[in-house]
Protein backbone atom coordinates (compact mmCIF):
# COMPACT_ATOMS: atom_id res chain seq x y z
CA UNK A 1 0.00 0.00 0.00
CA UNK A 2 2.61 2.47 1.12
CA UNK A 3 4.98 1.61 -1.68
CA UNK A 4 2.27 2.29 -4.21
CA UNK A 5 1.68 5.84 -3.00
CA UNK A 6 5.36 6.54 -3.17
CA UNK A 7 5.45 5.39 -6.76
CA UNK A 8 2.59 7.63 -7.74
CA UNK A 9 4.23 10.59 -6.07
CA UNK A 10 7.43 9.97 -7.97
CA UNK A 11 5.56 9.92 -11.25
CA UNK A 12 3.88 13.22 -10.49
CA UNK A 13 7.20 14.80 -9.61
CA UNK A 14 8.82 13.57 -12.77
CA UNK A 15 6.15 14.89 -15.08
CA UNK A 16 4.06 17.70 -13.59
CA UNK A 17 0.56 17.84 -15.04
CA UNK A 18 -0.01 20.57 -17.54
CA UNK A 19 -2.14 23.40 -16.10
CA UNK A 20 -5.82 23.16 -16.99
CA UNK A 21 -5.57 26.35 -19.01
CA UNK A 22 -1.94 26.43 -20.08
CA UNK A 23 -0.80 28.71 -22.87
CA UNK A 24 -0.89 25.85 -25.37
CA UNK A 25 -4.43 24.91 -24.35
CA UNK A 26 -5.64 28.49 -24.52
CA UNK A 27 -4.21 28.54 -28.00
CA UNK A 28 -6.25 25.46 -28.97
CA UNK A 29 -9.43 27.33 -28.09
CA UNK A 30 -8.40 30.76 -29.30
CA UNK A 31 -6.85 30.01 -32.68
CA UNK A 32 -10.03 28.85 -34.43
CA UNK A 33 -11.88 31.92 -33.17
CA UNK A 34 -9.80 34.26 -35.28
CA UNK A 35 -6.36 33.36 -36.68
CA UNK A 36 -7.41 29.92 -37.86
CA UNK A 37 -11.16 30.38 -38.18
CA UNK A 38 -12.85 27.42 -39.87
CA UNK A 39 -15.06 29.62 -42.04
CA UNK A 40 -13.09 32.76 -42.85
CA UNK A 41 -9.58 31.25 -43.01
CA UNK A 42 -10.08 27.58 -43.80
CA UNK A 43 -13.29 28.31 -45.76
CA UNK A 44 -15.02 25.19 -44.49
CA UNK A 45 -18.68 24.73 -43.62
CA UNK A 46 -19.81 27.39 -46.08
CA UNK A 47 -22.83 25.38 -47.23
CA UNK A 48 -24.66 25.55 -43.92
CA UNK A 49 -23.42 29.09 -43.30
CA UNK A 50 -25.39 30.11 -46.38
CA UNK A 51 -28.46 28.04 -45.78
CA UNK A 52 -29.46 28.80 -42.22
CA UNK A 53 -28.43 32.42 -41.73
CA UNK A 54 -31.59 34.09 -43.02
CA UNK A 55 -32.72 34.78 -39.46
CA UNK A 56 -30.87 34.83 -36.17
CA UNK A 57 -33.05 32.44 -34.19
CA UNK A 58 -32.43 29.34 -36.34
CA UNK A 59 -28.79 30.37 -36.57
CA UNK A 60 -28.42 30.28 -32.80
CA UNK A 61 -30.06 26.85 -32.61
CA UNK A 62 -27.84 25.62 -35.43
CA UNK A 63 -24.76 26.98 -33.65
CA UNK A 64 -25.65 25.16 -30.45
CA UNK A 65 -26.24 21.96 -32.42
CA UNK A 66 -22.90 22.21 -34.20
CA UNK A 67 -20.99 23.02 -31.00
CA UNK A 68 -22.62 20.06 -29.27
CA UNK A 69 -21.85 17.68 -32.11
CA UNK A 70 -18.28 18.85 -32.61
CA UNK A 71 -17.37 18.77 -28.90
CA UNK A 72 -18.85 15.37 -28.21
CA UNK A 73 -17.66 13.71 -31.39
CA UNK A 74 -14.17 15.08 -30.69
CA UNK A 75 -14.36 13.65 -27.18
CA UNK A 76 -15.67 10.25 -28.22
CA UNK A 77 -13.21 9.83 -31.07
CA UNK A 78 -10.35 10.98 -28.87
CA UNK A 79 -11.28 8.42 -26.21
CA UNK A 80 -11.34 5.66 -28.83
CA UNK A 81 -8.39 6.91 -30.87
CA UNK A 82 -6.12 4.00 -29.95
CA UNK A 83 -8.81 1.42 -30.64
CA UNK A 84 -9.96 2.68 -34.02
CA UNK A 85 -8.46 0.67 -36.89
CA UNK A 86 -6.81 3.04 -39.36
CA UNK A 87 -8.47 1.49 -42.38
CA UNK A 88 -12.01 2.18 -41.22
CA UNK A 89 -11.42 5.38 -39.28
CA UNK A 90 -13.39 7.68 -41.58
CA UNK A 91 -16.49 5.50 -41.42
CA UNK A 92 -16.14 5.26 -37.64
CA UNK A 93 -15.95 9.04 -37.42
CA UNK A 94 -19.00 9.36 -39.64
CA UNK A 95 -20.95 6.86 -37.56
CA UNK A 96 -20.23 8.80 -34.37
CA UNK A 97 -21.12 12.15 -35.97
CA UNK A 98 -24.29 10.75 -37.54
CA UNK A 99 -25.43 9.33 -34.20
CA UNK A 100 -24.93 12.62 -32.41
CA UNK A 101 -26.62 14.59 -35.18
CA UNK A 102 -29.62 12.26 -35.17
CA UNK A 103 -29.89 12.69 -31.40
CA UNK A 104 -29.91 16.49 -31.78
CA UNK A 105 -32.53 16.25 -34.50
CA UNK A 106 -34.76 13.96 -32.42
CA UNK A 107 -34.52 16.22 -29.37
CA UNK A 108 -35.37 19.27 -31.48
CA UNK A 109 -38.36 17.43 -32.89
CA UNK A 110 -39.58 16.56 -29.41
CA UNK A 111 -39.11 19.89 -27.65
CA UNK A 112 -38.66 22.60 -30.25
CA UNK A 113 -40.90 21.54 -33.11
CA UNK A 114 -41.20 24.93 -34.79
CA UNK A 115 -37.44 25.15 -35.06
CA UNK A 116 -37.28 21.55 -36.24
CA UNK A 117 -39.54 22.47 -39.14
CA UNK A 118 -37.33 25.40 -40.10
CA UNK A 119 -33.98 23.67 -39.72
CA UNK A 120 -35.09 20.12 -40.49
CA UNK A 121 -32.80 19.03 -43.28
CA UNK A 122 -29.96 21.33 -42.27
CA UNK A 123 -29.49 19.74 -38.86
CA UNK A 124 -29.11 16.43 -40.67
CA UNK A 125 -26.55 18.04 -42.93
CA UNK A 126 -24.24 18.73 -39.96
CA UNK A 127 -23.11 15.16 -40.68
CA UNK A 128 -21.45 16.40 -43.84
CA UNK A 129 -20.23 19.65 -42.30
CA UNK A 130 -16.58 19.62 -43.23
CA UNK A 131 -15.58 21.36 -40.00
CA UNK A 132 -16.70 18.48 -37.79
CA UNK A 133 -14.97 15.74 -39.75
CA UNK A 134 -11.98 17.95 -40.32
CA UNK A 135 -11.45 18.36 -36.58
CA UNK A 136 -11.86 14.65 -35.91
CA UNK A 137 -9.37 13.66 -38.55
CA UNK A 138 -6.90 16.47 -37.89
CA UNK A 139 -7.07 16.70 -34.12
CA UNK A 140 -9.09 14.17 -32.14
CA UNK A 141 -7.40 11.15 -33.77
CA UNK A 142 -4.05 12.23 -32.33
CA UNK A 143 -4.78 14.11 -29.12
CA UNK A 144 -5.97 13.49 -25.60
CA UNK A 145 -9.67 13.83 -24.69
CA UNK A 146 -9.41 17.08 -22.73
CA UNK A 147 -7.46 18.84 -25.46
CA UNK A 148 -9.94 17.53 -27.99
CA UNK A 149 -12.85 19.04 -26.08
CA UNK A 150 -11.05 22.39 -26.07
CA UNK A 151 -10.39 22.08 -29.77
CA UNK A 152 -14.06 21.27 -30.38
CA UNK A 153 -15.15 24.29 -28.37
CA UNK A 154 -12.76 26.54 -30.27
CA UNK A 155 -13.83 25.39 -33.70
CA UNK A 156 -17.50 25.29 -32.72
CA UNK A 157 -17.51 28.84 -31.43
CA UNK A 158 -15.33 29.97 -34.33
CA UNK A 159 -18.07 28.69 -36.64
CA UNK A 160 -20.86 30.02 -34.44
CA UNK A 161 -19.79 33.63 -34.16
CA UNK A 162 -19.22 33.99 -37.88
CA UNK A 163 -22.64 32.62 -38.86
CA UNK A 164 -24.20 34.74 -36.13
CA UNK A 165 -22.65 37.89 -37.62
CA UNK A 166 -23.82 36.87 -41.10
CA UNK A 167 -27.32 36.17 -39.79
CA UNK A 168 -27.39 39.50 -37.96
CA UNK A 169 -26.82 41.47 -41.13
CA UNK A 170 -29.05 39.27 -43.25
CA UNK A 171 -31.97 39.53 -40.86
CA UNK A 172 -31.42 43.25 -40.30
CA UNK A 173 -31.42 44.17 -43.98
CA UNK A 174 -33.48 41.28 -45.36
CA UNK A 175 -36.35 41.28 -42.87
CA UNK A 176 -35.78 44.56 -41.03
CA UNK A 177 -35.67 42.78 -37.69
CA UNK A 178 -33.35 41.29 -35.09
CA UNK A 179 -34.45 38.05 -33.45
CA UNK A 180 -37.89 38.66 -35.00
CA UNK A 181 -38.09 42.05 -33.29
CA UNK A 182 -39.00 44.62 -35.91
CA UNK A 183 -36.24 47.07 -35.16
CA UNK A 184 -36.95 49.66 -37.82
CA UNK A 185 -40.63 49.86 -36.95
CA UNK A 186 -39.66 50.31 -33.31
CA UNK A 187 -37.62 53.40 -34.09
CA UNK A 188 -40.44 54.78 -36.20
CA UNK A 189 -39.08 53.97 -39.66
CA UNK A 190 -42.09 52.07 -41.00
CA UNK A 191 -41.13 52.36 -44.62
CA UNK A 192 -37.75 50.63 -44.30
CA UNK A 193 -37.24 48.86 -47.63
CA UNK A 194 -36.23 45.25 -46.93
CA UNK A 195 -33.62 43.90 -49.27
CA UNK A 196 -34.73 40.71 -51.01
CA UNK A 197 -31.16 39.91 -51.98
CA UNK A 198 -30.24 39.42 -48.33
CA UNK A 199 -32.94 36.79 -47.91
CA UNK A 200 -31.45 34.85 -50.82
CA UNK A 201 -28.26 32.82 -50.44
CA UNK A 202 -26.50 35.37 -52.64
CA UNK A 203 -26.82 37.81 -49.75
CA UNK A 204 -24.97 35.38 -47.52
CA UNK A 205 -22.14 35.12 -50.03
CA UNK A 206 -21.78 38.88 -50.05
CA UNK A 207 -21.82 39.31 -46.27
CA UNK A 208 -19.43 36.39 -45.89
CA UNK A 209 -17.12 37.81 -48.54
CA UNK A 210 -16.91 41.13 -46.73
CA UNK A 211 -16.32 39.31 -43.43
CA UNK A 212 -13.49 37.24 -44.90
CA UNK A 213 -11.94 40.39 -46.34
CA UNK A 214 -12.07 42.25 -43.01
CA UNK A 215 -10.81 39.24 -41.10
CA UNK A 216 -7.89 38.56 -43.41
CA UNK A 217 -6.88 42.20 -43.50
CA UNK A 218 -6.75 42.11 -39.71
CA UNK A 219 -4.83 38.85 -39.35
CA UNK A 220 -2.69 39.39 -42.43
CA UNK A 221 -3.48 35.91 -43.73
CA UNK A 222 -2.57 35.34 -47.36
CA UNK A 223 -3.55 32.28 -49.34
CA UNK A 224 -0.62 30.52 -50.96
Amino acid sequence: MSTETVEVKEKVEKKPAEPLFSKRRRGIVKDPLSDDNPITIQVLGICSALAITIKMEPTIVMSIAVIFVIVFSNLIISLMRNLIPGRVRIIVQLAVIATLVTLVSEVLKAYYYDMYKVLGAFVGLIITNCIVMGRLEAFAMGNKPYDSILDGLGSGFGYAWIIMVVAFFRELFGSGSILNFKIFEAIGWDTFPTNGLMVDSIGAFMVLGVLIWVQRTKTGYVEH
Partner: protein
Amino acid sequence: MQRSNTYIIIFSAVLTIILGGMLSLASVGLKPAQDKQIELDTKKKILGAVMDISNIKDPNEILSLYDQKVTSIVVDAEGNTVEADAKGNKIVAEKVSVQKNYRLDKSERLYPVYMFKNESGKTEAYVFPMFGAGLWDWISGYIALDGDLNTIRGIAFDHKQETPGLGARITSQEIQGRYVGKTIFEAGELVSVSMVKGEGNAGLTDHQVDGMSGATMTGKGVNRMLEEYLGCYQPFFDKVKSEGNLALN
Protein backbone atom coordinates in the same frame (compact mmCIF):
# COMPACT_ATOMS: atom_id res chain seq x y z
CA MET B 1 -1.23 0.76 -37.00
CA GLN B 2 -2.29 -2.28 -39.01
CA ARG B 3 -4.99 -4.39 -37.37
CA SER B 4 -6.26 -7.78 -38.38
CA ASN B 5 -9.46 -8.10 -40.37
CA THR B 6 -11.12 -9.93 -37.49
CA TYR B 7 -10.41 -7.00 -35.19
CA ILE B 8 -11.87 -4.54 -37.68
CA ILE B 9 -15.02 -6.58 -38.16
CA ILE B 10 -15.59 -7.05 -34.43
CA PHE B 11 -14.84 -3.39 -33.74
CA SER B 12 -17.31 -2.25 -36.39
CA ALA B 13 -19.99 -4.63 -35.19
CA VAL B 14 -19.67 -3.56 -31.56
CA LEU B 15 -19.66 0.12 -32.50
CA THR B 16 -22.74 -0.31 -34.66
CA ILE B 17 -24.59 -2.10 -31.89
CA ILE B 18 -23.73 0.57 -29.31
CA LEU B 19 -24.59 3.52 -31.55
CA GLY B 20 -27.69 1.84 -32.92
CA GLY B 21 -28.84 0.99 -29.42
CA MET B 22 -28.43 4.60 -28.32
CA LEU B 23 -30.45 5.85 -31.25
CA SER B 24 -33.26 3.34 -30.68
CA LEU B 25 -33.44 4.32 -27.02
CA ALA B 26 -33.60 8.00 -27.91
CA SER B 27 -36.23 7.37 -30.56
CA VAL B 28 -38.46 5.33 -28.25
CA GLY B 29 -37.92 7.69 -25.32
CA LEU B 30 -38.72 10.84 -27.25
CA LYS B 31 -41.68 9.43 -29.21
CA PRO B 32 -44.43 10.63 -26.83
CA ALA B 33 -43.03 14.17 -26.72
CA GLN B 34 -42.69 14.22 -30.51
CA ASP B 35 -46.22 12.93 -31.07
CA LYS B 36 -47.54 15.64 -28.79
CA GLN B 37 -45.64 18.29 -30.73
CA ILE B 38 -47.00 17.04 -34.05
CA GLU B 39 -50.54 16.94 -32.64
CA LEU B 40 -50.13 20.47 -31.31
CA ASP B 41 -48.80 21.63 -34.65
CA THR B 42 -51.79 20.18 -36.53
CA LYS B 43 -54.29 21.63 -34.09
CA LYS B 44 -52.59 25.01 -34.19
CA LYS B 45 -52.89 25.05 -37.97
CA ILE B 46 -56.56 24.09 -37.88
CA LEU B 47 -57.41 26.73 -35.29
CA GLY B 48 -55.15 29.22 -37.03
CA ALA B 49 -57.19 28.95 -40.23
CA VAL B 50 -60.33 30.01 -38.36
CA MET B 51 -59.12 32.44 -35.72
CA ASP B 52 -56.11 34.40 -34.63
CA ILE B 53 -54.22 32.33 -32.07
CA SER B 54 -50.89 34.10 -32.31
CA ASN B 55 -51.38 35.55 -28.82
CA ILE B 56 -51.86 32.17 -27.15
CA LYS B 57 -48.47 30.92 -26.11
CA ASP B 58 -49.36 28.08 -23.75
CA PRO B 59 -49.62 24.78 -25.65
CA ASN B 60 -52.15 23.34 -23.19
CA GLU B 61 -54.41 26.31 -23.68
CA ILE B 62 -54.40 25.69 -27.42
CA LEU B 63 -55.19 22.01 -26.92
CA SER B 64 -58.08 22.72 -24.56
CA LEU B 65 -59.43 25.44 -26.84
CA TYR B 66 -59.30 22.94 -29.66
CA ASP B 67 -61.18 20.29 -27.68
CA GLN B 68 -63.78 22.85 -26.75
CA LYS B 69 -64.35 24.30 -30.19
CA VAL B 70 -63.55 21.69 -32.79
CA THR B 71 -65.16 18.40 -33.69
CA SER B 72 -63.99 16.32 -36.57
CA ILE B 73 -65.21 13.67 -38.94
CA VAL B 74 -63.68 11.83 -41.86
CA VAL B 75 -65.49 11.59 -45.17
CA ASP B 76 -64.83 9.62 -48.34
CA ALA B 77 -64.92 10.88 -51.92
CA GLU B 78 -68.73 10.62 -51.98
CA GLY B 79 -69.07 12.75 -48.92
CA ASN B 80 -70.16 9.88 -46.66
CA THR B 81 -68.84 9.75 -43.12
CA VAL B 82 -66.28 7.01 -42.57
CA GLU B 83 -65.87 5.77 -39.04
CA ALA B 84 -63.72 2.69 -39.29
CA ASP B 85 -61.18 1.33 -41.73
CA ALA B 86 -61.31 -2.05 -43.47
CA LYS B 87 -59.97 -3.78 -40.35
CA GLY B 88 -62.56 -2.17 -38.13
CA ASN B 89 -60.20 0.24 -36.42
CA LYS B 90 -61.61 3.61 -35.56
CA ILE B 91 -60.42 6.45 -37.77
CA VAL B 92 -59.55 9.72 -36.09
CA ALA B 93 -59.48 12.76 -38.36
CA GLU B 94 -56.45 14.32 -36.65
CA LYS B 95 -54.44 11.16 -37.31
CA VAL B 96 -55.27 10.94 -40.98
CA SER B 97 -52.21 11.91 -42.96
CA VAL B 98 -53.30 14.07 -45.84
CA GLN B 99 -49.86 13.65 -47.33
CA LYS B 100 -50.16 9.85 -47.44
CA ASN B 101 -53.68 10.00 -48.80
CA TYR B 102 -52.54 12.38 -51.53
CA ARG B 103 -50.67 9.49 -53.17
CA LEU B 104 -53.86 7.45 -53.49
CA ASP B 105 -56.44 7.85 -56.19
CA LYS B 106 -58.93 10.64 -55.44
CA SER B 107 -61.75 8.16 -54.96
CA GLU B 108 -59.83 6.11 -52.39
CA ARG B 109 -58.60 8.93 -50.21
CA LEU B 110 -59.91 9.81 -46.78
CA TYR B 111 -60.83 13.43 -46.27
CA PRO B 112 -60.84 14.88 -42.76
CA VAL B 113 -63.33 17.65 -42.00
CA TYR B 114 -63.01 19.88 -38.95
CA MET B 115 -66.01 21.74 -37.65
CA PHE B 116 -65.60 24.85 -35.59
CA LYS B 117 -68.55 25.45 -33.26
CA ASN B 118 -69.69 28.67 -31.67
CA GLU B 119 -70.99 29.01 -28.11
CA SER B 120 -74.46 27.67 -28.94
CA GLY B 121 -72.95 24.57 -30.54
CA LYS B 122 -73.79 25.51 -34.10
CA THR B 123 -71.15 24.92 -36.75
CA GLU B 124 -69.72 28.30 -37.52
CA ALA B 125 -66.95 27.29 -39.87
CA TYR B 126 -65.53 24.23 -41.61
CA VAL B 127 -61.85 23.56 -42.03
CA PHE B 128 -60.60 21.35 -44.85
CA PRO B 129 -57.00 20.18 -45.14
CA MET B 130 -55.34 19.93 -48.53
CA PHE B 131 -52.08 18.90 -50.06
CA GLY B 132 -50.27 19.43 -53.33
CA ALA B 133 -47.06 20.21 -55.14
CA GLY B 134 -45.36 23.59 -55.14
CA LEU B 135 -42.36 24.50 -57.25
CA TRP B 136 -39.70 22.49 -55.37
CA ASP B 137 -41.52 20.20 -53.00
CA TRP B 138 -44.88 19.70 -51.34
CA ILE B 139 -47.19 22.45 -50.17
CA SER B 140 -50.15 21.98 -47.88
CA GLY B 141 -52.91 24.04 -46.45
CA TYR B 142 -56.02 24.35 -44.34
CA ILE B 143 -58.91 26.30 -45.78
CA ALA B 144 -61.62 27.54 -43.46
CA LEU B 145 -65.05 28.21 -44.95
CA ASP B 146 -67.91 29.97 -43.26
CA GLY B 147 -71.09 28.07 -42.39
CA ASP B 148 -72.42 28.78 -45.90
CA LEU B 149 -69.56 26.67 -47.30
CA ASN B 150 -68.84 29.39 -49.80
CA THR B 151 -67.05 32.32 -48.19
CA ILE B 152 -63.43 31.85 -47.19
CA ARG B 153 -62.92 32.71 -43.58
CA GLY B 154 -59.22 32.05 -43.41
CA ILE B 155 -56.48 30.00 -44.96
CA ALA B 156 -53.18 28.64 -43.66
CA PHE B 157 -50.51 27.38 -46.01
CA ASP B 158 -47.39 25.43 -45.26
CA HIS B 159 -44.58 24.35 -47.51
CA LYS B 160 -41.38 22.37 -47.43
CA GLN B 161 -38.94 23.97 -49.81
CA GLU B 162 -40.36 27.03 -51.51
CA THR B 163 -37.87 29.86 -51.98
CA PRO B 164 -37.71 32.22 -48.99
CA GLY B 165 -38.95 35.67 -49.95
CA LEU B 166 -40.63 34.33 -53.09
CA GLY B 167 -42.78 31.20 -52.97
CA ALA B 168 -42.36 30.84 -49.22
CA ARG B 169 -44.45 33.98 -48.86
CA ILE B 170 -47.55 31.75 -48.98
CA THR B 171 -47.03 31.22 -45.25
CA SER B 172 -47.13 34.95 -44.56
CA GLN B 173 -50.16 36.70 -43.15
CA GLU B 174 -49.95 39.16 -46.03
CA ILE B 175 -50.65 36.53 -48.69
CA GLN B 176 -53.07 34.43 -46.65
CA GLY B 177 -55.09 37.52 -45.80
CA ARG B 178 -55.78 38.06 -49.49
CA TYR B 179 -58.03 34.99 -49.53
CA VAL B 180 -60.30 36.12 -46.72
CA GLY B 181 -63.80 36.99 -47.88
CA LYS B 182 -63.40 35.47 -51.35
CA THR B 183 -65.99 32.92 -52.46
CA ILE B 184 -65.58 29.53 -54.09
CA PHE B 185 -69.00 29.15 -55.74
CA GLU B 186 -70.37 31.16 -58.65
CA ALA B 187 -74.13 30.71 -59.17
CA GLY B 188 -74.03 27.22 -57.68
CA GLU B 189 -70.98 26.12 -59.66
CA LEU B 190 -67.71 25.38 -57.87
CA VAL B 191 -65.06 27.66 -59.36
CA SER B 192 -62.44 27.70 -56.57
CA VAL B 193 -60.23 30.69 -55.98
CA SER B 194 -57.15 31.29 -58.04
CA MET B 195 -54.08 33.38 -57.65
CA VAL B 196 -53.36 35.49 -60.70
CA LYS B 197 -49.97 36.13 -62.24
CA GLY B 198 -48.00 39.16 -61.13
CA GLU B 199 -48.51 41.43 -58.19
CA GLY B 200 -50.56 44.61 -57.77
CA ASN B 201 -53.38 43.55 -60.11
CA ALA B 202 -56.49 45.67 -60.13
CA GLY B 203 -60.09 44.61 -60.73
CA LEU B 204 -59.92 41.18 -59.14
CA THR B 205 -63.16 39.20 -58.98
CA ASP B 206 -64.50 37.37 -55.94
CA HIS B 207 -62.68 34.25 -57.12
CA GLN B 208 -59.25 35.77 -57.69
CA VAL B 209 -56.49 36.90 -55.42
CA ASP B 210 -53.45 38.98 -56.24
CA GLY B 211 -50.34 36.97 -57.16
CA MET B 212 -46.83 36.88 -55.81
CA SER B 213 -44.22 38.59 -57.91
CA GLY B 214 -41.48 36.11 -58.80
CA ALA B 215 -43.39 33.10 -57.54
CA THR B 216 -45.82 32.31 -60.33
CA MET B 217 -45.05 28.58 -60.20
CA THR B 218 -45.79 28.35 -56.49
CA GLY B 219 -49.00 30.27 -57.13
CA LYS B 220 -49.99 27.76 -59.79
CA GLY B 221 -49.32 24.93 -57.34
CA VAL B 222 -51.56 26.60 -54.79
CA ASN B 223 -54.29 27.03 -57.41
CA ARG B 224 -54.09 23.38 -58.44
CA MET B 225 -54.20 22.25 -54.83
CA LEU B 226 -57.25 24.38 -54.02
CA GLU B 227 -59.10 23.32 -57.13
CA GLU B 228 -58.38 19.63 -56.62
CA TYR B 229 -59.31 19.47 -52.95
CA LEU B 230 -62.35 21.71 -53.13
CA GLY B 231 -63.52 19.43 -55.95
CA CYS B 232 -62.93 16.40 -53.75
CA TYR B 233 -64.91 17.93 -50.93
CA GLN B 234 -67.77 19.02 -53.18
CA PRO B 235 -69.90 15.90 -52.52
CA PHE B 236 -69.59 16.73 -48.82
CA PHE B 237 -70.60 20.35 -49.46
CA ASP B 238 -73.66 19.18 -51.38
CA LYS B 239 -74.61 16.77 -48.66
CA VAL B 240 -74.38 19.35 -45.90
CA LYS B 241 -76.37 21.82 -47.93
CA SER B 242 -79.12 19.34 -48.85
CA GLU B 243 -79.43 18.04 -45.31
CA GLY B 244 -79.66 21.59 -44.06
CA ASN B 245 -76.80 21.07 -41.67
CA LEU B 246 -78.99 18.83 -39.45
CA ALA B 247 -77.00 15.68 -39.51
CA LEU B 248 -73.91 17.37 -38.22
CA ASN B 249 -75.32 19.22 -35.27
